[in-house]
Structures are given as structure tokens and as C-alpha cells.
């Protein structure tokens, strides 16, 4: 099997997105529905507290003083808002095990036609769901290590940050504080992604164990730095798209209910672009995952006694 390079991995992204645009959009619609539900829920909670107070309009329009007053006044509503956002994220996390499994299955098996694609998506998502859930548990210690590294780095440079007078004086300590945690984060993210790809690709033939898969993938990712570069590029595009939107949106306040809808729709465009990027990265990971050495076989091979 040819050894794939970074270009091959990146190239797999647009191919997959253009071939399975419908699948991508279906996943995106599911996400948008949760986000829209979150939006409506938050709007409802805030309207209960603030619909009669014009000061909240000023706060939303960017009046800092009004914002401080409203935050102080509506603390319970803001706590509820936080709860709604958190619930949406947790819900999506649970759903994503199915959706990523489905996407991975589609990208791995390359079905033709809507019906086959949908069947493949559903079957793969359902088949790997519990394995993905176990993988999430298995990767928890890694995330805790990231938190520890982040906390340690931050506490080490906190005095320097508090005394920084210029932006370079701030960025230096920030880099020292954040870079190790960020690098570790990218490593663990990449390991999780490739472990998922492995679980999807080899589920039917090898039924690999989650812990073994995680550890093998860790070794694999370390041996193949291209996996990390590819993954990091994906996150870079994700961050750039977000930053570009924030930059372009600055100074364009949108008023009224129409403004709210416009705002949400514009942000959906950004979200779609980011999701396409992530699906593209997943496609590259599936491509590379195919070339990995096979895992130990756990599937019982049933032999027909008649044969």
C-alpha cells in the first residue's frame, strides 16, 4: 500500500465533502437544530427576565454599563443560560458518537446512492456507538493530563502575565503556558480521531478492543507526525474561520428580531464551513487509517462444519 503524505490526507477532504455533501448537510442540520433549540431556550429564559427592561436592549447593543447592571440583576437567568448551553454541548457530545461513527462508516465504505449511504451511516453509527463511548472514557485520563499541564503552565507564568506591560511581554508567557497543553491537546485529539477511524474500519473484521486500540493509536500517531500536522492544520483552519468571522462581524451590529435571525444564519454559514473542515480532516484520517497495520483479531471466525 502506498505511503500517504500530507497532500494525500488534505486532498481526501474536498473529495469526501463533495461526494457526501448530503451526508454532511444532514449532520449539520442535526447540529443546527440543537443550536437553534439552545438559542430559543436562552432567548426564552432571558425574555422572562428582561423583556420589560429596555436597559437589556442597550446591554445587547454593546452598552458596557448596562451590561454590568443586567448581569448583576439577572444572575439566575444567566446561570440558567449557562445550563442550557452546557446541556446542548453534552447532548451533542452524546449524539456525536453516533454521527461520527456514521460519517466514518460512510467514508470508509464509500456507499453509492442516498439509500445505501443512509443505511451505511445508520448501521455504522449504531455499531460503533458503544465503542466510541468507551473510547471517550478511555481518553479521559489524557484530558485530565492536559488540564494539569494547562493549570501548571498557567500558574507558573501568572505572575509574569500580571506584570506584563506590552503585548510581546504577554504573548511570551502565554505561549509558555499554553503551548505544552495545546500540543498535548492536539496529540490526544489526533489519537482519539485515529482510534475512532480504527474502530470503524476494523470493527467488522477484527473487533479491536478500545484500550488496545487507543494505545496502539498513540504509538502510531507518535511514529507518524504527519497525522499531527494534518490534525493541527484542521484546527488552524477552524480557528481562522472563526477569527475571520469575528473580524468581519465587528462593527456590524444587527438590531431587532430580524437582526437576531440574520445573525444566527450568518453564523450557521461559519459553522457549516467549520464542519466541512472537520469532516474533510476525518476523511483524511480514514484514508490514512486504511494503511495502518491490522490490529490483533478478536472476531471469532465461524467455520461451517459442512465445509
Amino acid at each position, binding site marked *: 500500500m502506498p505511503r500517504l503524505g500530507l497532500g494525500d490526507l488534505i486532498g481526501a477532504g474536498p473529495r469526501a465533502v463533495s461526494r457526501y455533501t448530503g451526508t454532511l448537510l444532514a449532520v449539520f442540520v442535526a447540529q443546527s437544530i440543537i443550536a437553534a433549540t439552545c438559542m430559543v431556550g436562552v*432567548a426564552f429564559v432571558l425574555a422572562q427576565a428582561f*423583556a420589560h427592561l429596555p436597559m437589556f436592549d442597550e446591554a445587547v447593543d454593546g452598552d458596557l454599563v448596562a451590561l454590568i447592571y443586567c448581569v448583576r440583576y439577572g444572575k439566575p437567568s444567566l446561570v440558567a443560560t449557562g445550563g442550557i448551553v452546557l446541556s446542548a454541548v453534552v447532548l*451533542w457530545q452524546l449524539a456525536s458518537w453516533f454521527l461520527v461513527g456514521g460519517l466514518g462508516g460512510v467514508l470508509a465504505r464509500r456507499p453509492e446512492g442516498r439509500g445505501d449511504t443512509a443505511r451505511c451511516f445508520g448501521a455504522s453509527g449504531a455499531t460503533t456507538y458503544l465503542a466510541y463511548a468507551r473510547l471517550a472514557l478511555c481518553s479521559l485520563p489524557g484530558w485530565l493530563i492536559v488540564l494539569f499541564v494547562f493549570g501548571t503552565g498557567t500558574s507558573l507564568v501568572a505572575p509574569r502575565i500580571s506584570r506584563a506591560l506590552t503585548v510581546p511581554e504577554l504573548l511570551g508567557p502565554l505561549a509558555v503556558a499554553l503551548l505544552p497543553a495545546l500540543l498535548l491537546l492536539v496529540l490526544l485529539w489526533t489519537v482519539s480521531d485515529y482510534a475512532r477511524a480504527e474502530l470503524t474500519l476494523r470493527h467488522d473484521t477484527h473487533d479491536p478492543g478500545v484500550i488496545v486500540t487507543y494505545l496502539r493509536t498513540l504509538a502510531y500517531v507518535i511514529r507518524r507526525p504527519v497525522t499531527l500536522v494534518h490534525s493541527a492544520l484542521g484546527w488552524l483552519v477552524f480557528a481562522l474561520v472563526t477569527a475571520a468571522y469575528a473580524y468581519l462581524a465587528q462593527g456590524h451590529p444587527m438590531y431587532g428580531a430580524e437582526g437576531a435571525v440574520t445573525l444566527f444564519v450568518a453564523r450557521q454559514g461559519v459553522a457549516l464551513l467549520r464542519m466541512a473542515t472537520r469532516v474533510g480532516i476525518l476523511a483524511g484520517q480514514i484514508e490514512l487509517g486504511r494503511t495502518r497495520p491490522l490490529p490483533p483479531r478478536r472476531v471469532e471466525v465461524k467455520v461451517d462444519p459442512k465445509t
Partner: protein
Amino acid sequence: MPKVDGSPALRGGGPPRSPRIANYKIDARLDPIRHQIAASETLTWTNAGQSEVDTLPFHLYLNGFKNEDSLFLRSSHGAVRGAHMSEASWGYLQIESVRVAGADLTGKLHPPVPPPANAADDQSVVELPLAEPVPPGGTVEVTFQYMAQLPEVFARTGYKGDFHLIGQWFPKIGVRVGPPGAERWECQPFHVNTEFFADFGTYDVTLTVPNTHTVAATGVLTNAVDAGGGMRTLTYHAEDVHDFVWMADPYMDVMSGQAKLDDGTVEVRVYYRPEQRDFARRHLDAAVGSIEKFSAMFVPYPWPIMSVIDPPVDAAAGAGGMEYPTLVTTSGDSVFARPGIRLPEYVTVHEVGHNWFQGLLASNEAEEAWLDEGVNEWADARVMAELYGQRASGIDWMGWQAELGALRRAADGGTGDNPSPIATAAYAFVDNAAYGEATYVATMRALQTLEHTVGSQRFAAAMKTYARTFAFRHPTGRDLFGTLGTALGQDLTWFFGPVFHEVGGLELALRHAECRPKHMSRGVFGDGSARKTVTELEAPDSVTWTCEVIVQNTGPLHVPVDLELRFADGSSQHLRWDDRGLGHWERFTLERSSRLVEVWLDPENKIALDNPTTHHHRLEGDGSAALRAGAWFGSFAQTLMQIVGP
């Protein structure tokens, strides 16, 4: 060798501006390695009262940092404004000898008898019994030899590396207060909430310091000579001040500017480390501007020099943000204080402002801290608005704008939850937070409310009268209230009493607002054969609306309140509710051709004493802003979703 200042200690010279009761001559030598000052001091004190004095009390402020039995460390728990007392560097003031008229009275020094409440083991005050009482009008000369050990900088005095800020460092006599003939000493032990209170006088201070060090001090530099051994001796002279502070640092640069007043100029110097140059420029502009504005608003700055120390960043928490006559320390230098985020400017304006409140109007900061901190806060908000524009006086950055006073009020919250009224002795507050809230922000709120009630120009003129009347004296809260009442030509006890002496704030609220279409009475009318039922058909709704608005104030403070009612046809109606002595609520009933859509209590934000969040109320809810906020939160949630999933 630094160049001596050619100017007299008072701008334009002239006769003494103050009674000059406590006059000091100090000869001090800094040991920058041990962070010690060896000094001799001669105090010439005049008994300006009408009763004899047989005991002299002295503040030994540095003993506040001597051990954990000090009232200062007990009341602060070793932390002030983010700076923490280092247990490796206690500070203290050790008197080696004290002589009066040639007689050694060192052994006579004793702690106050009886000891102050809650300060039995505190050593920040000592008393010296005199062999001979000082008669009214008489003077006494007291000579001390002492050693001051500086702590690592904490609570605005001490060292950090090579930086030395030397404040509260010499034996300082108390103040005689009270009615003529029945005077008593005011000499409070050093508490975390109490600052200072001292008589005006002259200071002649010689400082022997390493010749590598830049020095800034109260007053003017009158002489500088080489003292040999790598040291130099600098002589400073100050008149009509009530404290003396100095700073020594080998790395400081100086940037200077000129404040132009109606009657001359003031040289403003900012001392800073080279890496803080950009911030020094901002401090200089703020200091120059504030001297000009404060001089115009109150009384002209009387001294020729103002020094602003911008402490090194690692010393800013302990040394920054403190006021002394003609010398203040500032702070706020941070990468986060981008140009337009005016925290550094505000600190400078506030500390410079203290040269009026309490440098010139030398109130008792232990008993009436609000009289300098709070009045100064009120003045700061005005000065910042004049310097940087009303809307942008606090923040003008990346499209965000906020007025300083409004920002302070919003961040502070309301006035109703402080268990102590504003006019509480600084040491008697339940905690430092309550002290800060009442003394600074609540006082500012109160004065802004009164200002808006009586009119800004009239109030400013009255405050100017107060400043001119009590400059170089020791005004009290009573003096301020009396002057304002007289200058404004009205009895303001309805305001000052509850606002300054009672707990609680204003709790304004709209209780009810409703409009109904007006119509002839419906129902059953008449009896017997004349009984008639009038229904909606016979008495239809007219085009006139009957509106009822009920407002309430459940707080103990009562001030006149303006109301603005807005109607669906775009018209509005102004009402005034003066609830002083007339109960806690009012019902307004009116007839209009259009229905009521909004009620706005205090539409011009005159009442700074209440939280205004619910003052503006619309009768029909509008969820569009909530929807926009929801859109933002929804998108934020989606970003998080895309991080955890695809």
C-alpha cells in the same frame, strides 16, 4: 548631582497659609541594603488650643507592620489591595532616644493609657508625658533619635528590590481636636481602613542616600551636596503640608510637564522605570490635566511641584495608589490597560485629587474617611469627564465606551446591603469591603444625587465655597453639610441625615402600570321600573385611556423623583414624585388619548443612589434583544459542539 529647585515651597511665596502647628526637622540616612533609615527628628509643636497639654501622643505607623499583634495586621489579615505582608520582612520604628528641653525622656514613653479598644498590644501609638505642661499658645521642642526598618513594600510603604517608598516613617504627633478649652488628642492606632490625620506645618528634611539613586520627596529640593562614600545629601523644604514622604530608586527616569493655572504654573514630574515610559506619558497627561481641573473647581494648587511616582510593576500592588502632599504614587500599568482603558489615568487623577481632599482640606481620615475618599471620588468623575469626555471617561476602546462614574456605580452594585452608613468611622466598618463601598462609591453616589437634584453648576459652586473656606484646615462632615446648605440656600438635612447616617438605600420601583379604555359606567342603574342595565353596547369604549401608575420606594432614603410616561402615539408626560415625608408610594392616574407603553423612573439618571436596572419599564415585553442574545449563545454553544464533535 540633582539640580535644586529654584522655586519657593509655596507658589508665589507669601505668608503661611496654615497655622503651622507641627514643624519638623529631620535628618535621615538610607541604608539601601538593610532597608533601614537612621534618623534624628526635631519637632516643634505649638499648642494652638485653650487648654494645657501635659502629654504628647505620637504615631509610630511603621509599627503597624511590626508583628501580628498590631491592629493593622489584625484588621487587614496581612493583605491590602492584593499586596501581602511578607513574614520575612517586618517593619518597625525603633525610638532610641527622645529628649525635651535637653532632658532625656526615653524611659517615659509608654503605650496609650487606657489602651485603645481592640488594640491592647498595638505599638503604633506611644505617649510622652511632659515634665512641664505646654500652656495655650506655648511651644515644645521634642527631639527623637530613631531607626526605621522598612517592610517589603506593603500598604504603601517599604521596599521592593532597589525601590524604596518611604512613607509613614517618622514619629508624628497627633492632633488636638474639640471645642476651645476642652481639646483632646486625636491619635488613632494604625488600622487597615484608617489613613492619616495631622496638623499642617513645615518640613526641613535632609536625606542622605546613595548617589546612584533618583530621589523624589515632598516639597522642593533646596540643596544637594556630595556626602562622600558614594552618598549624597539632599535637603528638602516643604510648607503648609501635613506629611512628608520620599522615594529612592536607582533606575527611575523622570518625565516632566507643566500645569497651567490662572495664577501661575505647577511643574509635574513623573518618576518611572524605563520599561514603563508609555504609561508614564499617560500618567503625566492625567496629572497635568487633573491639577488644572481641580485648581479651577476648588482652590488653586498651592505648591510649585507635583511628583507622581509610577512604582515598578512588581511593587505596584504595595506601593501604588497612595497620596501624600505634593507627591503621589500611581498604578494601573498593565498590558491590559490599553490606551483608552483609563485605569492608569483614573488612579493618577484620584491620587492627585487627594492633594485637595485631604492634602488641603485635611479632614480626619480615621473618623471621616468618606470626607476625603468619597468627595474625591465625586470630583474625580467630573475631572475625568472633563479630561476625556463624558461618555468615554472610563473606557474608550475598540468601540466600547463607558463613563467612569457610571462604571463605578454599576460595578459596585447598590447601596442597600451595607450594614454601616457612610458616616461611620473608618475603623468601625464591619470589614474592608463595607468600608470601601460606603466610603468611596456610596459617597460619590450621594453627592452625585444631590448635585443632580440641586443643579450641577450650583452644586459645583457650593463645593468650591467649601474648599475655599476650609483649605489648610481640618473640616468635618458637619462643615461640609453646613457649607452646602448655606451656599445652596436650603435646608438639606432631609438628605444628609438619612443618606449619610442611616443604613440602606433607595429602592425605587414601578409597582403597577396599566391603561384601560375609558367608557361610561356599565352595570345596573336605578331601581324598580327605572332599573336599567348599561352594557358595552350602550357604553362603548371611547378613544380616551385611563392610565394608572403606582411607584414605590421601600428604602429609607427619599428624594424627589422624576417620572416620564411614554405613550403609543409617541407623546410623553413628565411627572414628579416628591416622597419626602409623604409615604413610600404614590398613585398617578391620568387620562390620555393614547395608551401608556413605557414608564421611566428618573429618566435623566439623577438618582445615583439606586440601581437603575428596573427604572425603565415597558408595559409590553419585547423579546427581540433576548432573541439576539439567544442567537449569540446558540452560536457559542455550536462552536463548543464543533470542538467536542464534528
